[in-house]
């Protein structure tokens, strides 16, 4: 499960696929992008470098929580995303920072345009990712979204995956 052979082209295609699967609501396929040990995290905007035990996070999902998050999007009573938002994600500024403890550190910038109830909202920030090769494919060990926003004030809550 060496990571030193993961190329920039592979990382960029992987991140484009992540965005495409989310924008087209292919969430079961999106879940396959994660290793079973992976975490999906969003720190609080006033502690962007905090740790999830000693400071407050917005989202700190292990695989079980992440699976339920995905399932909830398709439950009729998952009101916050019924009907589903329309989203378009832009991912750019991809940087590979090298291998650490068996995973590749990657950062990238994102802008997510989300339309819901006729209102266009924008989520903006950077990804702090840890990627590894697992079962022959690149997968997330960590998918952390650090919002560059005044909290969630402009968008309300974070009912979509960011």
């Amino acid at each position: 499960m060496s990571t030193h052979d993961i190329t920039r082209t592979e990382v960029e295609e992987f991140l484009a696929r992540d965005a495409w699967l989310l924008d087209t609501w292919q969430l079961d396929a999106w879940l396959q992008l994660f290793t079973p040990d992976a975490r999906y995290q969003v720190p609080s905007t006033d502690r962007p470098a905090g740790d999830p035990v000693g400071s407050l996070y917005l989202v700190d999902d292990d695989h079980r929580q992440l699976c339920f998050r995905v399932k909830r999007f398709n439950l009729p009573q998952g009101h916050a995303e019924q009907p589903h938002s329309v989203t378009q994600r832009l991912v750019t500024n991809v940087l590979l920072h090298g291998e650490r403890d068996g995973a590749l550190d990657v950062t990238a910038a994102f802008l997510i345009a989300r339309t819901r109830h006729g209102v266009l909202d924008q989520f903006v920030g950077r990804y702090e990712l840890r990627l590894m090769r697992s079962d022959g494919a690149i997968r997330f060990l960590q998918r952390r979204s650090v919002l560059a926003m005044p909290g969630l004030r402009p968008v309300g809550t974070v009912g979509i995956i960011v």
Partner: protein
Amino acid sequence: MHKHDPDALIVSAPQAHSYLVNKRAFADPALFARELQEIYGKLWLYVGHDTEIPKPGDFVTRTVAGRPMLYVRGADGVARVYLNTCTHNGATVCREEFGNRKHFPCAYHGWVFDCDGRLVEVPGEAAFGPQFHKADQGMILPPSQASYRGFTFVSLAKRDDLVDYLAGAAQYLDILCQTSAAGMRVLPGSHQYATRANWKMLPVNVIDGNHFMPTHVTYLQYLRERGSEMKEPIRDFHEAHLGNGHTVFEYEAPWGRPQGKPDPAWSDAVNAQILARREELLGRLGADLGDRIARRNRNLVIFPNLIINDIMGTTIRVAEPISVDYMEITAWQFCPADDPPELARVRNEQFLTFLGPGGFATPDDTEGMEASQRGFACYREAPWVNYSKGIAAEMAGGYTRPGESDFMMRAFFNAWQEYLGIDRFAEAS
């Protein structure tokens, strides 16, 4: 259906088992202006908890009723709230969210204040002449401030009655602060979110037991799927008006509480730590109070906009009114100061999945509140919100079960109308 006075704030007719609130209360900018004056301009408003600023020079900045405020611990160890506005030209002196500073230099003209609020430096001071004294120009305090159990409040009116104002709510702060022998603290970091709805919708959402089942079905499914025992119903339910518009409801839920009730979804090691917490509570506080803290949840609303849910996690939450149809919400986690990391992880999971704006429940509350706000645009043609549930049982002398009464909403709106000092909209503008 009877024709009610369309200008009435509230139509209360207990004999007809009816209590209606005018939707215009959530949608009329003139009424909102009156609320800012009569409620936010006069009552006690929450600023922060003193565990957020433990050391001299520690500070946080907050916006309370639209006013920028600086909550800072002085070199003398006393936590105080100042209006965050320079006594020279009015600029916000502190422009950071939190930190530690002995001195606060104003960026605009360089006046410098210390963490005790004193003005200590004025560039070109001599030019102000001999009658200028720095001692007269310290940071200005809000008209009133007081703390109870570390919960710090200000009022924009002159008053010195915080404990009387808290009334029956004070004992619930006492209970909360006894949860851990090591004390309670605010965890660093806050949830800063918003809802496109009138500020009253948030406290009403909290005390509205009726919404839980329809709104949070998926959260209960999450608990079942993670392995929580969900067979028992809500038990030991009690709801009360605590005076001055403050309300509480207390109950035992089927799911666990990191504060003292194990849950089969959690590891044996974590449940052993939770049982040890329970034993410690019973030993320290006696069987009754110890068991009550360990086992039962409490949803407390302190009028107008402070919400303390001591439930699957404990949150301190404030709704700041921005406009008639938009509020900013800030939430903190209030937790034992001594939780070991594995228990803290479980506590955080509870907090984020239910109380967090990125969880499996709060976004659904927001959806319900915002949908209501959009519907309130019909207030002229469809004027009434119906908070009549449970009146029939009350009139018959019976008790109501969880989710079967709007008792607390009626207490909230009765107090609201009294604070406003009007009962018809014609008087609002």
